[in-house]
């Protein structure tokens, strides 16, 4: 999957000055076969970038094309199909279901495509150190724990590009490293790539491309 951005500028960011190497107001490309790092300070529009690529926000000028097609022409059903089979995301606000348990949150996503077995899901929970939380409702878990559930959930579908919006903001270095390993493992298994946004720290991340905002 190739995502082309041509002179894209979100309306809320119009007032801000943007550097020459910024993704905004220039022509850039996100290649789903690559691992991309998006490094920027607060308020530059990392989350806006992530939600715009994911089709949640459409308040921008310029054009964004996915494999040559303008994403503004996609209707809701096309977006849903894309999110089910090609695009996955970890949202900054996680978007988990607080009343469901950690495992139910994972099942809900996995049921759509039966991408991974129950054993594999439990294994991932164990890997990220929250295996004992599987039957706890998400609203009773700490943000760091919830963040790990959200990361696992994003891996339970076929995808070409994974959009990770500050996925490690509530994790310590060690847990971030473990999570990143899992993400790399699953991304490689899917022959996919990802865009990872971060506030400076790149968690020892070995990226192919770096974009700036």
């Amino acid at each position, binding site marked *: 999957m190739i995502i082309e951005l041509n002179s894209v500028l979100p309306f809320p960011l119009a007032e801000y000055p943007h550097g020459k190497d910024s993704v905004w107001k220039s022509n850039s490309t996100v290649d789903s076969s690559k691992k991309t790092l998006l490094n920027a300070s607060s308020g530059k529009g990392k989350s806006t970038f992530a939600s715009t690529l994911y089709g949640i926000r459409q308040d921008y000028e310029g054009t964004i094309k996915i494999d040559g097609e303008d994403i503004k022409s996609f209707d809701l*059903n096309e977006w849903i199909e894309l999110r089910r089979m090609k695009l996955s995301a970890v949202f900054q606000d996680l978007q988990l279901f607080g009343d469901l348990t950690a495992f139910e949150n994972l099942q809900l*996503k996995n049921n*759509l*495509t039966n991408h991974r077995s129950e054993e594999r899901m439990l294994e991932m929970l164990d890997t990220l150190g929250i295996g004992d939380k599987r039957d706890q409702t998400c609203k009773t878990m700490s943000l760091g724990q919830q963040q790990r559930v959200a990361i696992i959930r994003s891996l339970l579908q076929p995808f070409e590009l994974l959009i990770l919006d500050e996925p490690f903001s509530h994790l310590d270095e060690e847990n971030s490293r473990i999570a990143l390993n899992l993400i790399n493992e699953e991304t490689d298994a899917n022959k996919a790539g990802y865009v990872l946004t971060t506030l400076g720290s790149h968690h020892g991340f070995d990226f192919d491309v770096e974009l700036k905002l």
Partner: protein
Amino acid sequence: MLKKLLFAHKSNLQFVFATLGTLIGLTSLLLSAQLILDVQSFQSNEEELFGPNSVVIQKKVTKLTTIGMNSTEFTPEDIKGLEEKEFITDVAPFQSSDFKVGISEVEGDGLPHFYADMFFQAIPDRFMDVKNTEWEWNVNSEYIPIVLPRDFIMIINYGFAQSQGINQISEELLMAARLQIYINGNGQKTTKIGRVVGFSQKISSILVPEDFLKIMNKQYGNGNILNPSRVFITIKDDSYGELEELMEEHNLDINQSAIDVVKIKTIVAVVIGIFGIAAILIMLLSLLGFIQYSQLVLSKASYEIRTLLRIGYAVRSIVKTFIKQLSLTFGIITISAIGIMFAVKLLVINPWLEDHGISIGASGITISLFIGIISLVLFIVANYLNISRTVKRLGNE
């Protein structure tokens, strides 16, 4: 799991009210439909004879009539006027005998001796609901079928018989016995055998088959062409009001008891109709209640719906989850309403009617099923449209 997620914040109170409203509304609607059908099928003995909604009209006899200045005859223009009325579906002038008629008993058939001068009248066969075989007549028939006014037998039994010291006769006996008929006109005489095949409250005439009267008039008639003085009409259901207006306007007369059935039917139909309209209003209000209920559930679950769409759940699978739940509720409501309606009808209304001497025809379940299914479909479609519109809106936000 979808159901658990989407109905996590449901509002029970609103749901109970909407459900109760729909149940009451639908039950009332079914009940009124069923009752209207029952009233339509309500039959008196009279209608068994003439079919429903038929009445005889005649012009009022006034002082002017008696001194010959005002005729009670219906002119061809009068008849045409009646035929043009929208609520009158059929018009048939009475034909009268143009010869003298006398009747006596046939000796040995069990009737006391009597002789009476009479007259014959006839209306078209299509108004006669007597069993066809009994009313059929041709020149080779063994006897002439006759319909007598019920008052006739009353006069004989409670007036004539007592004063003359003869035996009273039952309807059954009279119908079993033969009658000797003497016909005299156009300078000729003949006798025939007649048999009573029915009694009428509505028509105070001695009715014979139309064919018989035509042939006899030709042969024994004195050649007077008479305009009819009475007309048999059939009116539409529930048009008692128009009939009354017509009678007022043209100074017409009608046997009051004969229109009672028509009158009662009209009034009852109007009352039940109002009840039915109220029921439809209740139904519509509860439909709104349900739409509001699902709107509330949707807005309370808006985070869940939006997020489900974001992680790849299709609009239709979310809509389906809601509709499945609501359809189940509506299905139960519909079945309960039909059940309650029949219970009320069979256990309360029918016994009450029977206690009051009103027999009604058994009405089927078809109309209830039909109305039930129509409202079920209406409820599901209305809610489906509302829910899928709201879910799509949430997805595009």
